[in-house]
């Protein structure tokens, strides 16, 4: 992810109906827009869900993406958030190898990065870490030498920045 400004976040509020995610992802596929990351979750109003995308604005004309999304009948609202105007976070769950040999180094790293230990046994530690996407990438690199056993990221979510 060389140039972070390339990635804009689009927060859509959609009707909570079957098939809506298929409509949205189908639209992206059909129009040749690449989705960098995608997060879907219910909102506080059960009629609606929120789909948060990150799209590479160098690969797709953002205005067309938004206008085409808007044409979907089930899309109720669209918020377009350039990187400088939003606070975004992504969550990572990761299980790392942690034998007696390397355990101390790993624990130090976890402390430095303010990650959380969710579970552990004699061979492995499971962590959670939430931050900006770029920080997740960096942390992942730091963990790699220890041996990443399993890793999952959620895709980013975002809210407009406070002024």
């Amino acid at each position, binding site marked *: 992810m060389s140039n972070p400004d390339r990635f804009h976040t689009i927060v859509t509020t*959609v*009707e909570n109906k*079957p*098939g809506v995610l*298929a*409509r949205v992802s*189908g639209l992206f596929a*059909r129009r040749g827009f690449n989705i960098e990351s995608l997060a879907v979750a219910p909102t506080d109003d059960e*009629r609606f869900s929120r789909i948060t995308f990150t799209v590479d604005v160098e690969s797709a004309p953002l*205005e*067309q993406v938004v*206008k*085409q999304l*808007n*044409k*979907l*009948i*089930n*899309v*109720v*609202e669209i918020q377009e958030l350039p990187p400088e105007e939003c606070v975004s976070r992504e969550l990572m769950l990761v299980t790392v190898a942690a034998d007696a040999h390397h355990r101390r180094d790993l624990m130090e790293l976890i402390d430095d990065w303010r990650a959380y230990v969710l579970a552990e046994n004699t061979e492995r530690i499971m962590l959670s870490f939430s931050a900006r996407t770029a920080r997740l990438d960096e942390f992942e690199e730091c963990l790699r030498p220890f041996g990443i056993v399993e890793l999952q990221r959620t895709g980013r979510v975002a809210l407009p920045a406070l002024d």
Partner: protein
Amino acid sequence: MSNNQQMCGGEALVKALERAGVEVMFGLPGGAILPVYDPIIDSSIRHILVRHEQGAGHMAEGYAHATGRPGVVMVTSGPAATNVVTPLCDAFLDSVPMVCITGQVPYAAIGTDAFQECDTTGITMAVTKHNFLVTEAQDIPRTIRAAFHIATTGRPGPVLVDIPKDIVDPVNPRSAMTWYEATDADMDLPGYHPITQGDPELIRAAAEMIRTAERPVLYVGGGILKSRAAEALLQLAEMVQIPVVTTLMARGAFPDSHDLCLGMPGMHGNFTAVTAMQKSDLLISLGARFDDRVTGKLDGFAPDAKIIHVDIDPAELGKVRRVDIGIQGDCRLVIEDLTTAMREIGGTDAQVDRGAWRSTISGWQEKFPLVYEQSELGERLKPQYVLEELRDNNPADTIVTSGVGQHQMYASQYWKFDYPYTWINSGGLGTMGFSIPAAIGAKVGKPDRRVWAVDGDGCFQMTAQELVTASVEDIPIKVALLNNSYLGMVRQWQEMFYDERFSEVYLSEQTPDYVKWSEAMGCVGIRVESPEEVAPAITKANEINDRPVVVEFRTDPRENVFPMVPAGKSNSELVVDPSQQGLEP
């Protein structure tokens, strides 16, 4: 029908269609939709039984084009649903209002690969404006209302409603429902709010840009017809005295016989329409979408032109070509407001002098009219001549539908369209086989009008079976079959761009026998081989009104459509008729 009456979902569906104003629908029954066909027997809706579901779809389109009312299709699940995919896509690309009801396997069986199950909403997602899978009988009235609302408002388009069998089948308790007259509030469409009124500030800015343009062109598309704006357009054009080009989808939206009309632009547009756009300093695009068949190679298109673009669909504004002023709104409303704004800044008198532009244009018109070489005695008929004779031997309000290919281009070029809603064709998808079913739909919608389907031999063989429908249902359309024994348009490309290496384009000169085939389908069949037979055959066809007529014109297989902008080339590289090549504009 009083609210709160207990009924079955099937009855409710038919009732809801009646309440939506449906007078006619096109369809064919089968297992999953059977329970809905029972209440149709007692309904006021005329059902036209087609021979193939694709025919039903194109009939609905023809009906919608001709009347402005949504076309309605009803078919069963599985193969029937897949058979309507082509017309749905056709209607989607040409913004035709259409509601398609498909049967579906019972709700509980969905996802089990049940007999004749297919994922209809999944398959049609990309070719409809919207689709619904109805899961409860109680939702039927509100879904039908929403379907018609979506199909007919904003940018019109096809909407599909998939109905599982259990919710319409009286033997199934899940079909029980309490009738209600659905209102707008019942539709529950929180994400759908089409904007129709244009922004007044942008309209004022557009008026000023138009006033001072030296070489403006009104570039009008199918949106004029969809928004019923032909009258408003005429007023605007006459007030500002700006020439008009009418795209393939807008033929008839502005009268061809009007002094300001330049005719069709695009790949097979006439020299003046294409060149006026190329040289223009302002294109005023009204309900058109800068299709590649109009623009040619995009970066060579109208290089000096500023763009005012009016469209009901904001996604069209700037999609293809950067706009200087983009106005979202209904074409008719925006044109009316624009006309008012033009009047406020001085109307006709305030326009800059465009004498030079006008004389340049009329110079082109004189030098580069549409031409073709008339056949010599004993030679094959020219398709253009057939079109001229058809035009001259029919009233101006005749509805003309067409298939896709050379015959379509000849029809669009040589017919004189002076009334809106007289030209019906498949523009965006270019669907071979469109003309006959579309003509049937148009004739059903406008029974008092003469309807001619201009067809090619390739196209005819794709949907001719609907002539059986026309005979049996007493829908006396007329078909002008331009039989050149070839997939002519493809042949033309192979001749021009593939070194005359003809690959799989020859159909046959002997087979089928179109006269016999037509007669077998209950039509009158007439064969025409020489120029002097053309007019009498047309007259004869026009005298027959108790059944469909097919006139097979045996035309010259080597004839090509000119002018032509070769695919991928700029419009400045328009190739004119061989007889005009070398002339200096």
